[in-house]
């Protein structure tokens, strides 16, 4: 177990160093998220802070922004490893599919959550509709981020052996993530933070199931 954790940490280090050195890609993805969130903020800021409509637009928009982030990170994940051939290198270095999958899942989770916090910050800065329930909305978004990260990692792993991945990845993420995304919007609008726990549990369950499936998907 200790060795597995060590390998996951080594792989995580590798992924973050690579992303830091590919600053343009990371900055572009961040800029995209900021622009969408800012646009949403400006749009929903036209409504008064208590308006239901503003809250629905804002929450739907930020959830979709999260989905975009999940798509970006999916392309940085397994897809890039496969395109370079380094996925073979990792297999030859005795890294098991499940270890590799968990490291990519954690990598995806960290990036998705960081981007979510930054985008949400832009949304509440430029808009007023989501100003009041900041903490609650953020907790719900972070909980949904776990599920979306698992969906993103899984979509990336699935598309490794397929050619139509540019279309497949966003479609898979939206298809697998749609029920969760709908629930997230409803929870934010209703400000039901308690049920964020359910989102977290479903994210963990999905992560565990896809980790188990990774042995077949990545072989």
């Amino acid at each position, binding site marked *: 177990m200790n060795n597995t954790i060590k*390998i996951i940490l080594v792989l995580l280090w590798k992924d973050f160093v690579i992303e830091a050195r590919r600053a343009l890609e990371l900055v572009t993805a961040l800029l995209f998220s900021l622009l969408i969130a800012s646009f949403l903020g400006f749009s929903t800021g036209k409504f008064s802070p208590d308006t239901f409509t503003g809250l629905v637009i804002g929450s739907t928009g930020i959830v979709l922004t999260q989905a975009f982030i999940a798509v970006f990170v999916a392309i940085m994940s397994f897809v890039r490893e496969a395109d370079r*051939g*380094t996925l*073979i*290198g990792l297999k*030859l270095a005795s890294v098991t599919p499940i270890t590799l999958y968990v490291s990519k899942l954690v990598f995806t989770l960290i990036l998705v959550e960081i981007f979510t916090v930054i985008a949400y910050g832009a949304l509440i800065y430029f808009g007023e509709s989501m100003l009041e329930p900041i903490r609650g909305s953020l907790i719900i978004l972070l909980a949904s981020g776990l599920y979306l990260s698992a969906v993103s990692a899984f979509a990336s792993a699935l598309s490794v052996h397929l050619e139509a991945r540019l279309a497949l990845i966003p479609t898979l993420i939206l298809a697998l993530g749609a029920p969760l995304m709908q629930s997230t919007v409803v929870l934010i609008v209703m400000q039901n933070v308690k049920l964020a726990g359910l989102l977290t549990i479903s994210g963990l369950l999905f992560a565990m199931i896809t980790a188990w499936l990774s042995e077949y998907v990545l072989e």
Partner: protein
Amino acid sequence: MPVLRFENVWKQYYGLNYILKDINLELDSRDVLLVVGANGSGKTTLLKICGGLLAPSRGRVLVNGVNAREPTAKRYIGMLLHEPLLYPELTVLENLKLYAELKGARLDDDILVEILEMLQLKAYMGKSVRELSYGWRKRVDVLRALLGRPKLLLLDEPLSSLDPVGVKALLKALNMHIDMGSTAILTSPYRVEDISILKGELREIMVAKLDEGVLKFE
């Protein structure tokens, strides 16, 4: 126990003709096999099956008694393919450190240090791989393949992209590993000059030709 064992191995792609037909093979410690064949004859497929990267359609492959598809079998294997398996954003040293850590190998291994000197890579350790030409990346990849003193070395057309210095270093490294008990399989297109270089430099090499899916020893 043989280092490598092929038991009735067949390989077919997508319902097309069999590219490998009923391959039976046993290689012991210090055996060196050169597999020659035309383009598309299945040399790389054979090598990838040895390395557990592809599953046979029928039969099985054992490396040191372990099914080649198992992650544990990879600990015994060092593989060199056409394309270097390196991360362009990382430096040469970072790439080697990464693979060494993943494989549980040591970078300060005497043999590895000697090969590093032969390949003249010392001056390039701090350079990012993306700054290197293809030939230099291939040299780094040779070092990657030799991490952990693998018992089974699989080299896909190793002479095709290395210059004379690189070839000399690679063959010397191969001999060192064979002397330590490793087994090697190399592939080559049916080029007379490649075969004569390999026969001249490697001790007691066996040659087999892959023709229409069948492996025939010469």
